[in-house]
């Protein structure tokens, strides 16, 4: 076995790119869950973002406009979820699953004319001296802007939840919506905003797939990335920094297994192909065995002011 042909520098660079879609989706879902809402529609919102971002990107010839549209589309779809679960008090699990199915179907419909079309793609940023640092430059400073936006989003969410009054209110709503309500906070309004934010993030993640990583539109192209994002939120015990670790770990295993194959590693290919999912399951098992979940206490419970 000759693994010397795997370049660690290029590997890290690839991992950053391959982790970005799930990073977006997971950090959005983290905020939603921190507010006490379980939205299982991440996959549906991602793929809707992917198709809308792609369509708008192609038509306007600007990937950035595509990303904005994708965020809008993801938020629009999540708005349906928010209305159903927050005002009509529908079951969150069922509504979320419905959202995924609706998103998959809707995206196939919108995407029909865009199959096989080439899209404009985001240029790699030139960060001047940073990009020229040997090794580190290639690893971290020669990506397109969305890779950094994703990381920045994690930092912002962390800072928001930890240091701001708004973050405190959001967490209070997620931990005990009755207490938050008694204190005079608008539980439903806070949750609505959190759900919209989660939808927008999932949309961005989807658009990153169709506009940068592939870049092409194909039906069902998210291929379960939304579910992985949901798993990563649990994996991270609802902490922003661990989302970053989880996303890079998953992205890392995905890329590494292909690299191992390309380098001719003597490991059964079927095992390598399944490894990202096996590792996700393994980590989830370890976390639940440890017992410390850190899940928001009101997660998945409906709230009505009369209760």
């Amino acid at each position, binding site marked *: 076995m000759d693994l010397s042909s795997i370049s660690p520098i290029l590997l890290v660079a690839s991992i950053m790119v391959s982790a970005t879609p799930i990073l977006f989706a997971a950090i959005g879902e983290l905020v939603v869950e921190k507010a006490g809402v379980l939205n299982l529609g991440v996959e549906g919102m991602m793929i809707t973002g992917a198709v809308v971002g792609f369509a708008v990107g192609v038509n306007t010839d600007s990937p950035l406009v595509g990303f904005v549209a994708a965020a809008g589309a993801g938020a629009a779809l999540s708005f349906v979820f928010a209305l159903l679960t927050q005002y009509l008090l529908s079951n969150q699990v069922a509504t979320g699953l419905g959202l995924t199915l609706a998103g998959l179907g809707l995206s196939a419909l919108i995407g029909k004319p865009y199959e096989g079309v080439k899209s404009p793609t985001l240029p790699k940023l030139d960060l001047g001296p940073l990009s020229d640092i040997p090794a580190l430059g290639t690893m971290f400073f020669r990506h397109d802007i969305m890779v950094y936006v994703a990381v920045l989003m994690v930092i912002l969410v962390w800072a928001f939840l930890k240091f701001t009054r708004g973050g405190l209110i959001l967490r209070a709503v997620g931990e005990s919506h009755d207490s938050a309500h008694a204190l005079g906070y608008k539980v439903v309004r806070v949750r609505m905003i959190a759900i919209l934010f989660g939808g927008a993030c999932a949309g961005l993640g989807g658009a990153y797939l169709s506009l940068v990583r592939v*870049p092409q539109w194909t039906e069902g192209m998210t291929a379960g990335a939304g579910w992985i994002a949901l798993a990563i939120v649990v994996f991270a015990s609802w902490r922003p920094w661990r989302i970053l670790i989880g996303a890079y770990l998953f992205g890392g295993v995905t890329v590494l297994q292909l690299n191992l194959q390309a380098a001719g590693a003597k490991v059964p290919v079927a095992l390598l192909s399944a490894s990202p999912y096996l590792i996700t399951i393994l980590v989830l098992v370890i976390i639940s065995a440890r017992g410390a979940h850190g899940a928001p206490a009101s997660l998945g419970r409906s709230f009505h002011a009369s209760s």
Partner: protein
Amino acid sequence: MKRRTLLATVAAAATFAGAAFAEEDVTAGFIYIGTPGDGGWTYEHDQSRQKMEAHFDGKVKTIFQENVPESADAERAITQMAIAGADIIFTTSFGYMDPTLAVAAKFPNVKFEHATGYKQADNVSVYSARFYEGRAVQGHIAGHMTKTNKIGYIASFPIPEVIRGINSAYIHAKKVNPDVEFSVVWAYTWFDPAKEADAARALIENGADVVLQHTDSTAPQAAAKEAGNVITFGQASDMGDYAPMPRVSSIIDNWAPYYIQRVQDVIDGTWESKNTWDGIDTGMVEIGEISEAVPADVKASALAMVEAIRTGEYSPFTGPLNKQDGSAWLAEGETADLGTLAGMNFYVEGITGDVPN
């Protein structure tokens, strides 16, 4: 009695309707693994379907279903098509083999055509193309053009068709460039652009400057284009959008003449189960234009090879050739027999790595 009369009437009406239907119209159904928008495999099947429909000018109706997984869903989709009144059904992916046979047993009056498989029945034909003839030409060009001497190969599933392609490309690359090495990545999918793009990137990052693909989408082409000085070949379709670089040539599957012939047979009532395996000679395999990125002398020798294969003067599997473990396979001048090729499950000498099982 009444009920029996009713049944008889219905049966008579159905027979009558069926007969009337058959006089005017033949319906041909197609089951696709991806969507025609893949720009590759399914695209060519769909183009050929349209050409066939145009050829019969209204006499033949075609129906198709896209994105049919190679699982229990396939059986359902094929059954649905048979119930919908298709007279002949083309199932266009290897993994539809057993579902096709299962459905065919239930609909003895419907003709089935399974692409790239090897199991026949009274109403199931199999057809495929000698893609490996095109792979020989690709290997020849790749061997000449690689600078890193590393050629990446995105393989789909470890089935004979794919293994033949890898062997054929390797033999001809090695012939012109003894230092050449192949890295094979098994994607375990025919069509998943994200995975194909990742696989292409992994190969390129491992030093490959030629990427061959046996998957259906254009995603590897896009990845190679992004990387810059990497060459690729169009797979199943011309993928001409990526010419002249990275796509320097291609294998084009032209199914239209076959589809026209087989539907004509159904109309004439002369259809019978057979095994078709055509190559460059009948035009089922076409070599897409070799772009200006290829040096003139390489292009000339590649075209000479195409011509030699077309006339039958040269066969891509001509000895002396050994199997991967070093045991002798073909003696000097001997050519591979159809049976071995159809069931090929071994690499030839020089390829590293194992065929997954």
